[in-house]
């Protein structure tokens, strides 16, 4: 056995170990800061909400306090600003704003994320700082002596001077922007607000509504609109095709009892039927793809219409739920929703 292969093997091990050590040394331990800024608009309350936060990783916390300076601008003009310094050691700082939204305006939330040297707050001239164990990384950020009195590296690099013990980790470009929608200018504004105020998952916009029935519909607009608002309804194309196919399968004309309902109407119907606390918040009638078809309370008619609906791809409410006075059909599957197996048999 020659010693050369053994020597090369040791070298190989050393090389691989060195790579692993290096990788382990710099991985996982957080040595960074994060900025988070977001702005949202809620139609139901017509308010704009801005939020910005600075998060420091733990090695930075040894030396700095998280600080954030937030600004909320409307069409480029700052309308609210404020700052927060994590003096109590939470590990993060945040500010938030709420202002009334104005239609057709652009709102931008931005945050300036900083580390404030609490450790040096009582420093006299001559105080300094040290930036943690992975100095070179933060050197890349030009974080050096704060007051020019102390340079840990003391090398040829000339450290920048800051006027106060504050380090700009980043003028965060992390701004977020929204543009508020223009109002519809009619009853749709009231209906849209109902979706928010009554907690419906769907959040329609002006263009979600129509005021006439689709061409070729077997029912009129007023037959399909059972809401409190006679001029507007959400009527999805799956409802038109589904009802036409159901009627074709049934072989005779059908009569709708109810179609689109605005959330308040749905709630009033449900609570009127005794569902005081558990009304159907997300009824498909509010989504515009459901219809209740009259049966004359005849069981055989109920069964025939229900079968025709199932054949037309509908989710059909079981008799045990609805009774026989009407058949509830909806085409939620076209909207990406699912119904239980009992509604499909």
């Amino acid at each position, binding site marked *: 056995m020659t010693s050369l292969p053994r020597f*090369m093997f040791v070298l*190989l091990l*050393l*090389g*691989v170990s*060195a790579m692993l*050590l*290096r990788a382990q040394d710099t991985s996982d*331990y957080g040595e*960074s800061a*994060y*900025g*988070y800024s*977001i702005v*949202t608009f809620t139609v*139901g*309350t017509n*308010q704009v*909400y801005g*939020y910005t*936060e600075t998060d420091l990783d*733990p090695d930075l916390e040894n030396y700095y306090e998280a600080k954030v300076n937030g600004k909320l601008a409307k069409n480029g003009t700052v309308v609210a600003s404020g700052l927060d310094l994590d003096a109590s*050691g939470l*590990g*993060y700082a*945040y500010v938030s704003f709420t202002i009334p939204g104005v239609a057709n305006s652009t709102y931008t939330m931005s945050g300036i*994320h900083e580390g404030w040297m609490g450790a*040096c707050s*009582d*420093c006299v*001239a*001559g*105080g*300094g700082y040290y930036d943690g*164990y992975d100095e*070179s990384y933060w*050197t*890349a*950020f*030009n974080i050096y*002596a704060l007051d*020019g009195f102390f340079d*840990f590296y*003391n090398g*040829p*690099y*000339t450290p*920048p*001077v*800051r006027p106060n013990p504050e380090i*700009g980790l*980043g*003028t*965060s*470009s*992390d701004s977020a922007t929204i543009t508020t929608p223009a109002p519809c200018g009619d009853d749709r504004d009231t209906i849209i607000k109902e979706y928010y*105020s009554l*907690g419906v*998952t769907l*959040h329609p916009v002006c263009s979600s509504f129509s005021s006439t029935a689709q061409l070729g519909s077997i029912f009129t607009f007023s037959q399909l609109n059972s809401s409190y608002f006679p001029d507007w309804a959400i009527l999805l194309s799956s409802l038109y095709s589904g009802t036409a196919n159901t009627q074709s399968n049934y072989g005779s004309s059908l009569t709708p009892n109810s179609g689109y309902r605005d959330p308040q109407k749905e709630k009033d119907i449900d609570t009127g039927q005794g569902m005081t606390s558990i009304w159907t918040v997300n009824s498909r009638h509010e989504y515009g793809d459901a219809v209740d078809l009259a049966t004359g309370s005849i069981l055989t008619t109920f069964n025939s219409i229900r079968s025709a609906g199932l054949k037309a791809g509908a989710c059909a409410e079981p008799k045990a739920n609805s009774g026989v006075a009407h058949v509830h059909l909806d085409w939620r599957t076209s909207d990406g929703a699912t119904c239980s197996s009992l509604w499909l048999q």
Partner: protein
Amino acid sequence: MGFVKTLFCIGMYVFLIGPLLEEKQLCGQASPIPPLTPLPTALLPDAVVYKPFFHHVAAFGHKADELEARNEDSRGYREAFIHQLNINKDQADSLTQVAYQFEAKEKLIQAKVHERVLAFRARYSGGRLDPANPPPRPDPEMYALFLEKRDLVLEMRDQLRQTLGEVEFQRVNALIRTKIAPNIQPISPASVHENIVQSPSTNSGGK
């Protein structure tokens, strides 16, 4: 043999020579340092994404609580995430509860962190440091607390998963990734360069 030599050289370079060059490059230059490439937000780990998100949810929850205590309209704060994440009221309430739990547990960990930070700082009277005796690396306990906080974020994410159910969680998580995560940015070195005040007459020596 060539491969072995190559591997060895790469390893030794990375471990020994690389850092030296890196330090020289970073510390020894008077010219501006080229900015590092920021981490794409799509690659941000869940622990980074969910932490400020939970803080945000909790902050809005507290605002709503305050308004309700004064019999004022709190809907805006209550509904902010209903719209943002297309969730219903019950799911929004669950999200707020998870965020409150996160906040409470994080405070307990952070109290320990703060205690250690204060102890660390106390070792350097007046903030003065001795260039000949640089402070040690952060206490291993700090590192353990960091991991504890990171694990807490993931634990609370999983609690949200359990509360919403797997299908709904996947849908909501996808929206968090597309609507929340892009608003979280690692601090960019370039932006720091812009922000630092330069002085031509700086005294770079130790006092």
